[in-house]
Structures are given as C-alpha cells and as structure tokens.
C-alpha cells in the first residue's frame, strides 16, 4: 500500500505484505436526522498490500469486502442495511476498492486514490492514510489508518436522503506484516 518512511530498506521492489486480520477493521459511520449516528463494520474481506519502499507511487492495495458481512449491531438492523434499499447484497454481494495512485504527503501521511465499486458502480475514492511504524519493528510491520468519505448517491444509493446523510465516512485500519 505504502512505504516505510525511511530509506535504504532491503525490500526495494513492490512486495506483498500479509494483512494482519487481528489488527484490521473496515468500519463506517453515517448520520441521520433524529437518529443516533450509526457505526458499522464489515467482518469478511480479502485484500492485498504491495509496498514499494523506494518508489511509493508503485505501491498498491486492493480490498474486496463481503457486503453480507455488514454488522451494525443488531440482526434486524443488519437485515435492513443488507436489503435492496441500501447494500442490496443479494444482487451485489461484494464491494471492491483498488488503488490507482499512491502519493506521499509527508513522512506519516499518504493519499491513496482508487476506484470503489459498490452496487455495480465504480467511482474514484480518495483516502487519506496515516502510516504508523513501530520503531522497534518497522521493517516487518506497518499500521495504516485510511479515512475517506463515500458519497453514496454517486453509487445510486439514494434511500432516505436527506434524512439519512448522503455521506458515509469510512475508516479502514489495517496492519501489514512482512513475515515471510
């Protein structure tokens, strides 16, 4: 996905890192009028992280999320979020993000631009990524916190607007391990 913020690393080609599932969460939040902010997450996904330390722009990531694994805290609420009105998981069981551009902003921040495919529609999505390295173990583990906003109407998900916000804030936390 990114690079380690120091140079002279031994691994100098885009190298695939393992996603530490215990340290990964794909979460979202959405506001609505007269209703508490809804926080949710997706439990199942597959992903890939390639990190090129020398040429950050060559880094790459993609994630495919199992839409049916959405969890907003209660079975009936999950069923509603999965229904045709929102995620329509019967017809669109997965959502996917694939990066097209990685840009280093500073030593600990990057901008990742990619395509998000949701409800069969692909649109560009920009994520701001905080990169966190553990000083003692920076060659083998990097943590990322990616934040972005999905404008759901762009994907045809117009249900409940304007009572339910058009904007969905997403936060993807993950840790990449280089333990091969």
């Amino acid at each position, binding site marked *: 996905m990114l690079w380690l913020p120091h140079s002279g690393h031994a691994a100098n080609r885009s190298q695939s890192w393992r996603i530490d599932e215990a340290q990964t969460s794909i979460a979202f939040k959405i506001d609505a009028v007269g209703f508490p902010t809804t926080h949710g997450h997706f439990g199942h996904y597959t992903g890939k992280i390639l990190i090129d330390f020398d040429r950050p722009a060559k880094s790459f990531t993609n994630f495919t999320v199992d839409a049916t694994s959405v969890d907003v805290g209660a079975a009936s*609420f999950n069923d509603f979020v999965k229904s045709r009105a929102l995620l329509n998981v019967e017809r669109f069981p997965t959502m996917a993000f694939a990066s097209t551009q990685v840009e280093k902003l500073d030593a600990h921040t990057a901008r990742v631009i990619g395509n998000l495919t949701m409800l069969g529609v692909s649109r560009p999505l920009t994520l701001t990524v905080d990169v966190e390295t553990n000083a003692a173990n920076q060659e083998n583990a990097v943590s990322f916190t990616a934040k972005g906003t999905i404008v759901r109407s762009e994907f045809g998900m117009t249900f409940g607007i304007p009572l339910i916000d058009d904007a969905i804030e997403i936060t993807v936390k993950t840790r990449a391990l280089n333990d091969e």
Partner: protein
Amino acid sequence: MNEPAAIWPLPIRIAHWLSAALVISLLVLGAVMVFAVADPARRFELTQIHKPLGILALIFTGARACCRLCSSAPKIALTSRPAVLAAKAAHLALYLLLFLMPLSGWLMVTSTPIRIPVTLFGFVDLPFPLAPDLATYNAARTTHLVLSIALALMVVVHTGAAMVHQFLWRDGTLTRMWGLGRSPDPRC
C-alpha cells in the same frame, strides 16, 4: 324496563385491560426508544417492535369500539350532570386518541423517506398507501408526539378518576370494569 347490569360485559372488560397493558407498553416503549436509547441498533430494534404493536393496538381499538357500540353500559354511579358529561367526554377523548395514535404512527411510517418494511405478526407486510413525503412525515411525527403526550395525560386522568371512584367515593365504578363474572349482554 330492565335495570342496567352491574358490570361491563366480559369481552369489554378483557379488551379494556389488554388494551390498557398494550397502550401503556407502547407509550413507555415509544418514549424510551426515542428519548433514552442512544444505541442505533437498539433504537432500530425497538422501533420495529413498536410499529406492529401499534397496529395491533389499532385493530384492538377497532374491535373494542364495535363491541362497545353493541353493548349497553352498566349503571353509572355518577349523579350530577356535569360529572356525567365530563366522564363521557373523557372516554370519548380516550377512544379518539386510541384511534388517532396508531393512525398518526402509520402515517409516519408510510410517509417517511426512510421507508422500512414492517411485517405484522410474522406474515403480513404493512401496506404503505402513500408516497414518501418529508412534509407529511414531519407533520405526522409532530402529531404522533403531541397525541402521545395527550394520551399519556388522559391515561393519568382516567386512572386518577378510577382511583377517586374506588377509594374516595367508593361507588363501585371500578368494579364495573374490574368485576369478574358472566357477561350480562349476550349480544357480545
């Protein structure tokens, strides 16, 4: 001429107490889910429970009103005309609120832009006869809130009056609704 019965017919009495339990539960549930529950998942669950119970209350009130119309009231202990009129007005207001509360709730769920399917008792989908409309929804929501306060107040007035009849005046009015026995009116 026959003397009026001493107590309400059994179906009326059963309907009254079931309706009381249902209506108080709905008032408490509604207030709790809107004002006390901050967790969105719990709020969603409780709201989805509130809706079919509200429709049940509407059906119940309909059946109860039919039953009421075809029964004769037991003898009334009140003697002064203003007291009789006040009691009649209070009961009419209660019946009216019992109809308008679920109807305004139904108007909310059918007019909201956040239309969420409601399955009644596990097998019937609640019909949504109107197109979603924010202005109608907002009006229905305000109406439902105002009526809920009015209904809660009327429940307090009704209970208070029953207590006065029972413990101050000791005129047996509560017994008309509480009394156990055979229905005096075979038509119901």
